[in-house]
């Protein structure tokens, strides 16, 4: 853990946590019985989910006619909600994959929950295209498999089919990434549990032991998955934007859509992470792990992506005017001043104006304000999708087919129901799994814990290589070497007493002498001193000369006691040698 840490980096783990404290704090929410507020939230979510399921069944039973879609407006709330949820699902993989590649340590506090959020959001999103099909039992037609219809294949040139591949791949990869990260933490939960609970978590932890080779592979896997999930996360919303951009509808047919959709997705995803984490950290008492620094970092991402979205909106406006194409110009005129003007201005305010408040450091670090903003941004991003989809479709080429659209209770019910699904799953997740990645937080403790960095640090960084207990006993840098040598001398002393080398010369393990480490031992052997007996007969001045000639800084090593120690070792008087060592200070006669 001797990675260089900038002194200006604020700590990411507060409260002077030890490894055991981290385990206790992060596992305990899964160990205690849920409190009343959890039950209330869970019941509410399940009720809302139940209503959503009812509305979905209603749609399937009666048909899409229960929605207010019409010949002009073929995509309404359903696709708006689909794109909105998919966008929210982007923050998880962004945090876990892209920020892993960028070595952003703050991701460890929020990645687990954000990835869970991604998976649940993608589930909510995936529902909409499925029920939008109308005859959901025909859903398998979207998959390319040798069938009895010819075989007739799906259209691989269609962005709608690309979406099927992109979203199912995204869901699968996110799930694998998330679960692989969870396995070591489930093992932590398992090893604290007893009885049936232990059996359950043993199953979930896949028999994880924490072996060094497994960790190495686990890290390699995480890194490569992050590497391929990064273009994946960018591709998913790019392909979602192709659903629109490859059409010939004015207002949709623009090349700016992919980057603008991706930025918007990250923008809304981070807003949703803020909403969830601000509640979660409060209820589960995780303020020391999800600190104000995490919140501020995410707010910085929000202001950056919010500005990208803002620039995209303005570029779209400019290009539509500059194109000289009247249908395109009308589409944008209609968005801003048509029948749905309120959604356009809602979008502009929530997504372009409001994030600018985050240029103020004070507001970035204000939790209540952040929470309020996160809700506002999610409303704004929902408006954005509604503007693009329903507003644009409502005024098409022929004024005779212009239309207006308001959702029915069924459409509203399905949308609300997806919140039920999302929060039901999230609340279950909070009960079952550690919300913060335990192993990953532990791995940054030495570089981001507040006892190591920041104003409350109590450990110095210059002696990072040392034991914290002994680090203070080493006053000057020159002494470091002898200290280490001495330490290693103790450490290696159990090695075989005498070992035959390849050349057949009998060697003693000289490192048993206090003050001699592996390096000095090698130096002495190079000079012809192989055994305790020959060391015993050497004069102190001669040993000193060998050390002086040798490469390496052995200046701090004083060999005055080595012949005396060697005499005891040669005679096999180990107990006496140990007594002598106790009196010595780093090999010196005290």
């Amino acid at each position, binding site marked *: *853990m001797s990675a260089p840490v900038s002194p200006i980096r604020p700590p990411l783990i507060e409260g002077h946590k*030890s*490894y*055991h404290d981290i*385990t206790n704090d992060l596992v305990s929410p899964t160990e205690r019985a849920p409190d009343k507020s959890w039950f209330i939230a869970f019941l509410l979510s399940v009720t809302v989910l139940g209503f959503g399921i009812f509305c979905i069944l209603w749609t399937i039973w009666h048909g899409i006619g229960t929605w207010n879609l019409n010949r002009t407006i073929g995509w309404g709330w359903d696709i708006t909600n689909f794109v909105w949820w998919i966008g929210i699902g982007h923050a998880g993989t962004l945090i876990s994959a892209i920020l892993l590649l960028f070595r952003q340590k703050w991701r460890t506090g929020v990645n687990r929950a954000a990835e869970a959020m991604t998976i649940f959001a993608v589930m909510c999103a995936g529902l909409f295209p499925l029920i939008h099909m109308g005859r959901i039992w025909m859903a398998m037609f979207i998959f*390319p498999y040798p069938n009895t219809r010819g*075989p007739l*294949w799906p*259209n*691989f*040139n269609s*962005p709608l089919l*690309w979406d099927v*591949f*992109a979203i199912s*791949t995204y869901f*699968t*990869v996110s799930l*694998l*990434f998330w679960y*692989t990260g969870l*396995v*070591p933490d489930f093992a*932590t939960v*398992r*090893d*604290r549990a007893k009885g049936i609970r232990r059996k359950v978590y043993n199953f979930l932890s896949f*028999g*994880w*032991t*924490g*072996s*060094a*080779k*497994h*960790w*190495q*592979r686990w890290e*390699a*896997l995480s890194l*490569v998955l992050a590497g*391929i*999930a990064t273009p*994946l996360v960018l*591709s998913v919303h790019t*392909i979602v934007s192709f659903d629109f951009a490859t059409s010939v509808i004015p207002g949709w047919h623009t090349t700016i859509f992919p980057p603008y959709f991706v930025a918007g997705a990250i923008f809304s995803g981070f807003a949703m992470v803020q909403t969830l984490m601000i509640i979660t950290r409060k209820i589960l008492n995780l303020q020391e792990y999800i600190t104000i620094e995490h919140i501020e970092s995410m707010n910085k991402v929000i202001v950056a992506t919010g500005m990208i979205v803002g620039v995209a909106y303005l570029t779209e406006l400019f290009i539509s005017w500059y194109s000289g194409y009247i249908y395109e110009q009308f589409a944008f005129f209609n968005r801003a001043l048509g029948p749905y003007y309120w959604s356009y201005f809602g979008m502009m305010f929530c997504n372009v104006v409001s994030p600018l408040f985050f240029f103020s450091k004070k507001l970035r670090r204000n939790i209540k304000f952040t929470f309020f903003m996160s809700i506002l941004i999610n409303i704004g991003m929902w408006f954005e999708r509604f503007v693009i989809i329903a507003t644009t479709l409502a005024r098409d080429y022929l004024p005779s087919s212009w239309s207006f659209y308001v959702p029915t209770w069924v459409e509203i019910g399905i949308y609300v129901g997806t919140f039920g699904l999302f929060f039901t799953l999230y609340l279950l997740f909070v009960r079952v799994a550690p919300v913060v990645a*335990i*192993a990953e937080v532990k*791995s940054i403790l*030495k570089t981001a814990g507040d006892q190591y960095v920041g104003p409350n640090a109590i450990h110095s960084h210059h002696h990072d290589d040392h*034991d914290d207990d002994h680090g203070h006993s080493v006053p000057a840098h020159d002494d470091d070497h002898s200290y280490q040598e001495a330490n*290693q001398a*103790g*450490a290696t002393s*159990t*090695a*075989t007493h005498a*070992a035959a080398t390849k050349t057949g010369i009998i060697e003693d*393990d000289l*490192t048993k002498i206090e003050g001699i480490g592996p390096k000095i031992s090698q130096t002495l052997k190079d000079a012809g001193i192989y055994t305790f007996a020959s060391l015993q007969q050497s004069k102190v001045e001669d040993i000193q000369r060998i050390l002086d000639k040798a490469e390496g800084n052995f200046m701090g090593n004083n060999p005055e006691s080595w012949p005396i120690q060697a005499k005891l070792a040669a005679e096999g008087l180990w107990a006496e040698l140990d007594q002598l060592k106790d009196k010595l200070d780093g090999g010196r006669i005290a």
Partner: protein
Amino acid sequence: MGKTKEVVYGLYSDEQDLLKAVKAAKSGHMEIHDVFSPFPVHGLDPILGLEESRLHIAGFIYGMIGALTAFLGMTWIFTKDWPIIFGGKPYWSVPAFIPITFETMVLFASIGMVVTFYIVCGLGPGVTNETLHDRLTDDKFAIAFNTHDVTVDSAKSFFSQTGASDVNVKVL
């Protein structure tokens, strides 16, 4: 997996102690059976002499298989099996195949790598591996010696010299 083995292990409380002890064991030519830690310890792999994981090579191969499957599959379907003209484009419209080729590549690479990871590590649903100590997934770090390679006595003195606690013998 395979035969049971008897190991002697000791626990350390800090990864720096662990690293020092691993170094000491290596310089003393004591063969380490395994090291266990609650999180990946940086700098451990080179000291322990672990070779770099080849998982990424496997991932590359799976990814290529995925990309080829998708691309060749779409090519066969749209040029041989059931050619259809969409929007006046050629049957073999390569640019339109790119998104699905990419997604399938990522899908194959990630599923393949994850499955390979669990298989080579001997992990998976329903697998129960004997663990040395319950604190090893919490705050302790362990070095384990196979008693065939290192006698229990020399291991014990090694552990006492390097400041390990809870020295114990266990059959894995």
